[in-house]
């Protein structure tokens, strides 16, 4: 059985026929070739697959593409379409908030929602709001700094 789904991805309307078991992340990576969204686990803990669904950070490995009917999806490839870095991306670079880069797109996507929710987040808030994103490289300290700085820059 296959089903037809329609959604908006990074501002573009998309309509595809899919096996209903296709996860949103599989749809993005394999069908849309948007490989910036990563898969790091199979239990929805690592957050490497985080994208925005109607503005909300969502683990794209833990929802079916079919559930996204009519939704607006934004991936890491869609936050800075003009080639300049989004303020959150720039803050990660400035504060060395990434090493191997694998968790980074998911981390940035969650951080952007965080900044929208808390324009001036405390260290404690950042640490607790990032508990759905695992990073094995950085020890998080520079990520926390980057998110605080990125949030500040987003207000401008």
């Amino acid at each position, binding site marked *: 059985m296959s089903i037809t789904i329609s959604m908006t991805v990074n501002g573009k309307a998309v309509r595809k026929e899919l096996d209903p078991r296709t996860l949103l992340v599989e749809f993005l990576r394999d069908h849309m070739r948007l490989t910036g969204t990563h898969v790091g686990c199979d239990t929805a803990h690592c957050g490497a697959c985080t994208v925005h669904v109607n503005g909300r950070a969502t*683990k794209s490995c833990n929802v*079916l593409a079919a559930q996204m009917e009519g939704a607006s999806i934004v991936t890491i490839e869609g936050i800075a379409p003009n080639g300049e870095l989004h303020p959150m991306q720039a803050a990660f670079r400035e504060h060395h908030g990434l090493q191997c880069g694998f968790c980074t797109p998911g981390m940035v996507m*969650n951080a952007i929602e965080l900044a929208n929710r808390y324009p001036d987040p405390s260290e404690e808030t950042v640490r607790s709001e990032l508990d759905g994103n695992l990073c094995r490289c950085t020890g998080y300290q520079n990520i926390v700094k980057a998110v605080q700085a990125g949030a500040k820059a987003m207000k401008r």
Partner: protein
Amino acid sequence: MHAFEYHRPKSMKDALSLLRKVDNAKPLAGGQSLVAALKLRLAKPGALVDLGALEELGGIKLEGGTLTIGALTRHSDVAGSKDVAIGIPALARLAGGIGDRQVRNQGTLGGSLANNDPAADYPAAALGLGATIKTNKREIAADKFFTGLFETALRPGEVIVSVSFPLPKRAAYVKFRNPASRFALVGVFVSESAGTVRVAVTGAGQDGVFRAKTMEKRLAENFSPDAIAKVRISADDLSSDVHASAEYRAHLVTVLAQRAVAAAIAGK
């Protein structure tokens, strides 16, 4: 993932008829537990009936001493709701502590209750507040709803529509998180309403969420942490696993229950 049929009905009527007609059909809410189970091939439904398009399952209402929350309300919406913050602030805080941000953005109240994970937070709130679970067929008291590990009183074809929480005088939830899963290693929900006290424990019981009745009795007499300092839950019926022994869980129940009482008194 095993193969399944997928349906996204536009009305409750269609949803119910699909659930009735299609073999081994399972309702899908936010999917934060079900999709994970599908991926690990732990669940093998013949069909999924996605309730996501059913707007009538959303909404939060505070009226007449009752807070009613639609089954499909996301955890982050409960956490951020003014009505919930006014009516039962402990519930808002509980919702804000479920899983992580991304899970809260998709996971739903109804999905969590119907799944009845023994370490989930919402079952403790439902039981600890004496909620009423309203389905397409009937109203079920929380005391009768949770029937065992991942088991509820829901029958095939029965779907949660909303949950009504009577407003307590004061309440609090304290969770000790499993450092890996971030589910409750033990969580205790305490509420006090006119004359009655409820203490619901999640994460610890072999059969899922349960009420700590001895504590309730002591607290009804004297709503203070000291009143239950010496009350020990028997470890016999508690779970022991790689994360914690039953004995440690039993110890935590008392510690957390005291902290919950203190928090309820402090209004925190």
